[in-house]
């Protein structure tokens, strides 16, 4: 029992207008298929599609990617990304701040039907927060985390 409020079937019309402006900016400018997968308390997990991992860092060559954004953006900031599969480094080293099946991804896992997800602590420090459309930065923000390993 976590005490969190999870919305697994998301009605976008019920989401805050500023958040939806940000989501629409993502769709219009970068990723038309971006959707809110689940809302867990005040945060939404946004599906960012499949990312090609061609940097030779991981045993997997592609991963499904999600980013965790606050419904109150830009008054609060994104924190955390998730992948399936759980990424493993080719060199066997641990991935810094990767958490396997962390509590933060449990609701997401239920919705997408994935048993094993990895959560990565990744913050929004020095990122744009001036307007709702700044949420578009979340796409490359999340992808960069994977490129860095």
């Amino acid at each position, binding site marked *: 029992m976590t005490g969190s409020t999870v919305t697994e079937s998301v009605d976008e019309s019920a989401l805050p207008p500023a958040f939806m402006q940000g989501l629409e900016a993502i769709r219009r400018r970068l990723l038309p298929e971006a959707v809110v997968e689940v809302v867990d308390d005040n945060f939404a997990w946004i599906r960012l599609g499949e990312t090609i991992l061609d940097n030779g860092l991981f045993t997997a060559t592609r991963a499904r990617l999600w980013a965790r954004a606050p419904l109150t953006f830009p008054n609060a900031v994104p924190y955390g990304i998730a992948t399936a599969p759980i990424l493993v480094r080719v060199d066997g080293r641990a991935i810094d701040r990767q958490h396997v099946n962390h509590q933060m991804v449990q609701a997401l896992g239920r919705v997408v039907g994935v048993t094993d997800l990895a959560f990565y*602590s990744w*913050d929004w*420090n020095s990122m*744009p927060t*001036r307007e709702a*459309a700044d949420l*578009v*930065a979340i796409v*490359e923000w999340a992808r960069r*985390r994977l490129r860095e390993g």
Partner: protein
Amino acid sequence: MTAHTRRYPVHIGTVTHQYESSPVQASQILADFGFTPPELYILERLEGDRAVAEYGSQDAVSLDSPDKNRFRAVPAGGGRA
């Protein structure tokens, strides 16, 4: 005789803008595509999904090869928390 202005298409994500000169400062490209303030971003030139060059906001970006003018705007911020 009609004078034709050369145009340089630039693509980021699903958006394309046309420029009439080259080079263009990276900060101008970032701002035109809505990535502001441009100082918070790095502009990366792409071949496939791979970055082959990167430009800070003050760098000049050559657009002379129209088939190589696909970029991504990568935020410079964010960190391991």
